[in-house]
């Protein structure tokens, strides 16, 4: 099985800790991935509402490149990229007209695509393919008793992915437990992080993030885990502002699930990007 890796823009910029930790964890578990050459934006923009064919087209280009590179499966760690790729795959396989238009556009750039490549999120890969046992075996530094709130966000498992339960997803919980941590059960694990509203309607965005963080905290969580760079960004970066706005000190480490895996696997902090976090995630590794 050849896994090709689609980082998307976040994992190269604001979410570079996700990429670092993901690749380190993969290395530890002997998973080899190859980055898609010359990949472009996943299309998680407003393009869709302006020109559907082009919007799907740019995403389809990534699928075509992945196929050209001989990949069997694409690993897409960002929830928006993952959904965008899945959505495109669904559109072209269910609507012959869209498929024809998209193929026509691809041909202009000298590419062709069968749209048969499977798209997978790392959570799906780690739990359902690599397996919980392999993860347990790699743990050298068990996170005894650490209380973890697993935050899946609204997009990762809805509406078209099938690898986890829509209302009560479990994959990240399984991983956290395999690392020796405790997980809290909470109703907000699939709530929206407000997406880009933190910049367009900051008051509402702040409130939504406040509620998520506060509820995690009140249930005794010591860290919130995410599997999406935007969720992580929203939950982590505005904690100062949120604390002032709601007059309540919200201080909560928010990290990628791969970073916590790395800590439990005994991987060095710098390889996990822990030193680049805004919330004091570093303390957890000590």
């Amino acid at each position, binding site marked *: 099985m050849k896994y090709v890796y689609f980082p998307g823009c976040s994992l190269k910029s604001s979410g570079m800790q996700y990429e670092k930790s993901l690749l380190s964890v993969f290395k530890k578990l002997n998973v080899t991935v190859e980055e898609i050459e010359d990949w472009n934006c996943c299309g998680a923009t407003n393009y869709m509402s302006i020109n559907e064919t082009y919007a799907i087209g740019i995403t389809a280009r990534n699928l075509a490149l992945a196929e050209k590179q001989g990949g069997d499966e694409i690993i897409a760690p960002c929830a928006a990229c993952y959904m965008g790729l899945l959505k495109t795959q669904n559109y072209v396989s269910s609507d012959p007209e869209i498929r024809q238009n998209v193929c026509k556009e691809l041909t202009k750039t000298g590419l062709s695509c069968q749209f048969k490549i499977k798209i997978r999120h790392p959570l799906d890969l780690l739990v359902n393919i690599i397996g919980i046992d392999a993860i347990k075996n790699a743990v050298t530094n068990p996170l005894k008793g650490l209380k973890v709130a697993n935050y899946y966000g609204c997009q990762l498992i809805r509406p078209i992915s099938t690898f986890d*339960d829509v*209302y*009560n997803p479990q994959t990240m919980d399984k991983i956290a437990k395999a690392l020796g941590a405790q997980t809290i*059960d*909470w*109703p*907000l694990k699939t709530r929206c992080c407000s997406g880009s509203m933190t910049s367009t309607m900051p008051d509402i965005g702040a409130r939504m993030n406040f*509620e998520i963080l*506060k*509820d995690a905290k*009140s249930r005794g969580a010591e860290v919130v885990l995410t599997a999406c760079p935007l969720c992580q960004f929203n939950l982590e970066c505005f904690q100062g502002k949120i604390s002032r706005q709601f007059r309540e000190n919200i201080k909560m480490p928010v990290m990628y699930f791969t970073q916590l895996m790395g800590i439990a696997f005994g991987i060095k902090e710098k390889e996990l990007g822990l030193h680049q976090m805004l919330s004091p995630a570093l303390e957890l590794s000590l």
Partner: protein
Amino acid sequence: MIKKNDEIKIGFYICHCGHNIAGTVDVVAVTEYAARLPYVTVSRDYKYMCSDPGQELIQKDIKEFNLNRIVVASCSPLLHENTFRTATAKAGLNQFYMQMVNIRENDSWVHTDKDMATLKAKDLVRAAIHRVAYHKALEKKSVPVNPDVMILGGGISGITAALTLANAGKKVYLVEKEPTIGGYMAKFDKTFPTLDCAACILTPKMSAVKNHPNITLWSYSEVSNVEGYVGNYKVTVTRKPRYIIEDQCVGCLACIDACIFKEAKFKDEFNEGLSKRKPVYIPFPQATPLVVLIDPATCIHFKTGKCPQSCAKACDRNAFDFNQKPEVKEVEVGTIILSTGFQPFDPHKAPYYGYGKYPNVYTSLEIERLVNASGPTDGHVVTRDGKEPKSIGIIHCVGSRDEKTNKWCSRVCCMYSLKLAHLLKEHSGAEIYNFYIDMRTPGKGYEEFYDKLLNEDVHFIRGRVAEVSDWAISKDEEGKLLIRVEDTMIGVVRRIPVDMVVLAVGLEPGKDAQDIRRIFNISCSNEGFFLERHPKLAPVHTFTDGIFIAGACQGPKDIPDSVAQAGAAAAEALALIDAGHVELEPNTAYIIEERCCGCQVCINMCPYKAITFNAEKSKSSINEALCKGCGTCVASCGSGAIFQNLFDDEEILSEIHGVLVE
């Protein structure tokens, strides 16, 4: 291909069916077209052929023009074939010289292009005119009807039907799969809208069933096979072992006290798991028959064999038999009534309401037990952790009217939610919130009941609840269940903190509905409820003659409707029984013995076990009474030895020729 015979005189009639047909098919054009076809002596159109004047038109023409073949182009033969056959017979012509063409369901209702629909009508009419020339005079066979009746399902519908028939002097076998009859009604506290006690009106009927000399009650039993045909069914019933000899037990309960388990520790099915029972138990104090049973899944004797069997020792009537095996009974009955009921929607399938996750989220059935004076808490409303709730939210339409679960309205939930709101208020004094999408209360006295509740300080919030959670934002929400809902009356999203949530679960087809459907050879609707022959004109008939349906197995139904329908089903069964005989359709298959090579291929093909092999003659033969006219054997016969009345080769070939060749 049309038969060359100048004596054939065909009368053709086409029905407008108001606008149903004439709106899409040019009936005048078809009439003129048919008039030019061979042997058509008369060709007429009429607004409603099925009306009396329409039928008289046919009869008059038969006599006046000496017609000997009739073709009627109208609706489905399921609806009116009999009407026109009778009209034909009244004029002195054999009724099987009449052929119906369905140009409504098969044409006008499914097309919009008038020209094309008219063309199709012409094709179909031409085919029938070609075929009818080959029709033969046939006679319906008459078979006696066995007066005994089997009723499957001992809820309020089955009980009502059984008592009606038994009181009319017919022998009834009432088969119930649970250890006791009573069904869901036995679990209810009060019934809407009169608020009379469910047990008080039901249990006398249950004992009447048990004591009626004409009723044989087989509880804890299931039907495993049905053979035969209308008037003459042979039913195999499997009686599950209770490990108690039913005739010996008097329900003294000494064995239950003596059970090796001092405390009851297994989920009590009758109380919806809100209380516990022992492995040897009686479902509830008024169970009928009042006989204990042993659950082998929890009994130490069956699990390990290491039990002193103190229960059996305590029985002074020697009613215990641990070696009991399933008992198979075979009975012959003439008619069957299915009243197998429904099952409540499983709210685990709607995880956003937190059932199974938060202990204080209940189903409506659990609340029925909780408010019941003979229930697990003697009618005290307390949550699972023993606290008295100060506020209760009742969520309507759980599993109903939802694309993701069950699309249909479950018909009873609005009313029982109102009833539970009243009872909970009465028992606990808590604040009650009803979350509804639409309030549907269409029954006698139902709207008045709703009005009554509106004056009882119960809150009504219109909006489908999005979620039940324990996500507290403020101090006063802590420790509560939060109901998030868009209040569509004021257009805002609200969070209502409550101590207890009641899910008004909808009704869906019984778990074993598909098995029963197969055993009794009847149909189900898309939803999985048993399908009636006609939703308005034959609501208790199925498409299998002699098998009737009653109660919620046909669709969600409240108690008054179930009882009314059960009465109707009993009346239909009585009509068949008292007629003494039924006429069988002559569209059966028959074997030309000289041509039969004795290969027996047809025997395996026949789904109705109607073909037997005569080893002496080395020929197969068909029992006409069992044959349903499906034609499978005709098609399978390699020797061309099997034929079927009404579907002779020349009739079919001529019809095909007629539809293809203008």
